[in-house]
């Protein structure tokens, strides 16, 4: 197997999701390479080596600075063709999904997306895709090469593999006319005070049960104590209690942190889809019949306004923060 992993960066930070996919690729064996595309990204190549890339293809060019998918399709198509890669892996993101899909069309390659895992079975690559609200797991395969796969956020831990310095290969960037037609003319980046919800190991999410926009202070304080990020349900985002960037669910982000704490969240299917692959789910809700309890590891029936402040204090004591 000759695998290429698209490693995404934001500023000078490699995205944990894509490093997790890289580490997974390394665990499957074969030749594993990463591709980095951006402006001033050469310095980031070494880090990809420690997550399992023996080779890092670097396309470092000012034209790749804006986070647009189409120029990256040009870069990846060239790397895949020149390098003879049979497998191309992506960690899902707004950018990566468009790159993966565009690449599939460019190469007429099979793409399986929304995968939670991938295994080698009888010598063939098999993707694991939770479907229909995760009520069924579908095993998916590819009929030809290259095989393209797009993984759900947080499918794999970004654990360093102990790999050494990678071989860095410079990619000569040649862009197609239609790939350079779209231009970024402005950016409004939201200031984040903690980890982004897709990269966070711990998420404290709030729903209607917080009672009012101010209720999110409880979620924020608990998240801070746990070193995590804050998420929200569609209902409270629609009601204007919390920004859309924090929305988890079918119409928001899909997350799978190590710990998900649901505060006053009923657990409607639209929310469940976005968080049920979390490793451990703790839910606090005053309604004993809330659906969230059906897929929580620890369900607490009670008043979150009583419990959460105490919990935050106890966590602070325990963690000595």
């Amino acid at each position: 197997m000759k695998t290429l992993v698209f490693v995404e960066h934001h500023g000078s930070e490699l995205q944990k999701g894509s490093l997790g996919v890289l580490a997974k690729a390394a665990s499957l064996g074969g030749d594993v390479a990463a591709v980095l595309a951006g402006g001033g990204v050469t310095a980031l190549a070494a880090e990809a080596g420690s997550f399992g890339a023996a080779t890092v293809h670097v396309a470092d060019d000012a034209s790749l600075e804006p986070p647009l998918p189409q120029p990256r399709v040009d870069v990846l198509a060239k790397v895949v063709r020149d390098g003879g890669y049979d497998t191309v892996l992506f960690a899902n993101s707004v950018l990566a999904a468009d790159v993966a899909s565009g690449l599939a069309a460019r190469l007429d390659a099979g793409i399986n997306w929304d995968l939670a895992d991938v295994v080698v079975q009888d010598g063939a690559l098999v993707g694991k895709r939770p479907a229909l609200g995760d009520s069924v797991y579908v095993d998916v395969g590819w009929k030809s090469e290259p095989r393209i796969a797009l993984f759900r956020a947080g499918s794999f831990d970004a654990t360093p593999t102990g790999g050494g310095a990678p071989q860095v290969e410079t990619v000569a960037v040649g862009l197609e006319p239609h790939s350079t037609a779209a231009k970024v003319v402005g950016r409004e980046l939201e200031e984040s005070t903690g980890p982004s919800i897709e990269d966070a190991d711990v998420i404290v999410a709030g729903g209607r049960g917080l009672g009012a926009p101010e209720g999110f202070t409880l979620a924020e304080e608990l998240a801070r104590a746990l070193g995590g990020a804050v998420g929200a349900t569609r209902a409270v985002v629609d009601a204007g209690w919390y920004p859309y960037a924090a929305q988890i669910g079918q119409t928001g982000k899909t997350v799978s942190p190590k710990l998900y704490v649901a505060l006053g969240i009923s657990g409607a299917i639209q929310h469940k889809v976005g968080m049920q692959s979390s490793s451990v789910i703790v839910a606090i809700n005053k309604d004993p019949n809330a659906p969230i309890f059906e897929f929580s590891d620890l369900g607490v029936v009670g008043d979150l306004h009583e419990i959460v402040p105490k919990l935050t204090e106890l966590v602070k004591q325990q963690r000595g923060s």
Partner: protein
Amino acid sequence: MKIAVCVKHVPEGSARLDAGSKRLDRSGEGALNRFDANAVEEALRLKGESDTEVVVVSMGPEKAADSLRKALAMGADRAVLVSDDAAAGADLVATSRVLAAALEREGADLVLFGQQASDGDGAVLWAAVAERLRRPVVSQAAALSLEGAGVHVKRQTEFGYDVIEAPLPAVVAVSDAINEPRYPSLKGIMGAKKKPQEVLTLAELGVDAAQAGEAGSQTTVLALAAPPARGGAQKIEDDGNAAQAIVDFLAEKRLL
């Protein structure tokens, strides 16, 4: 100006997979994918009172005509359905090939998509279609306007917003935060029946059947399985010590 909106007819209610074919069971009632209603709405908003033509385009079974009629009832001007037994079971590569052919035939200035299909399919089709049409693409549009000979898009990302401009012809996928789709009026529903509705076969579109549907697909479904169970769940009632119980639980799971 012409705006094409790609829409999908999805099974209504809870979808299920057919154990035999391992495809989505499309035998029941269906409806317009609700995320596509945002794309139809946006096209109608951009059209306003102008003479812009809004054409809705779909690939699907014959019943998909119902969803196209709903889009017509909302206010779209014309519908094109690619319906062919040989187009069934298509993956992304095959679907994008057929849709691109239908869009090529329309020659629209702007192609719109909704942000995802509600029947479990992913949210990636537009980039493949744009690649085949060799047009610029912008996804996750939270705001869209026409400016000069191009589009001005506010794209929502994990990190905030990017403001992107692209010349027409272009492909834009709108997020469901962009608008609140209108409900068809009674007049709209009555009028929809009289609007032009075309059904095309692959041959009429000039697409080789071997390049479409399951035959033209490069991915395959191997097996269906029950999801991994979440074992050992506990449920407690707060007796004043719930906070401590949670901390103990987290400590035991080594999460603190």
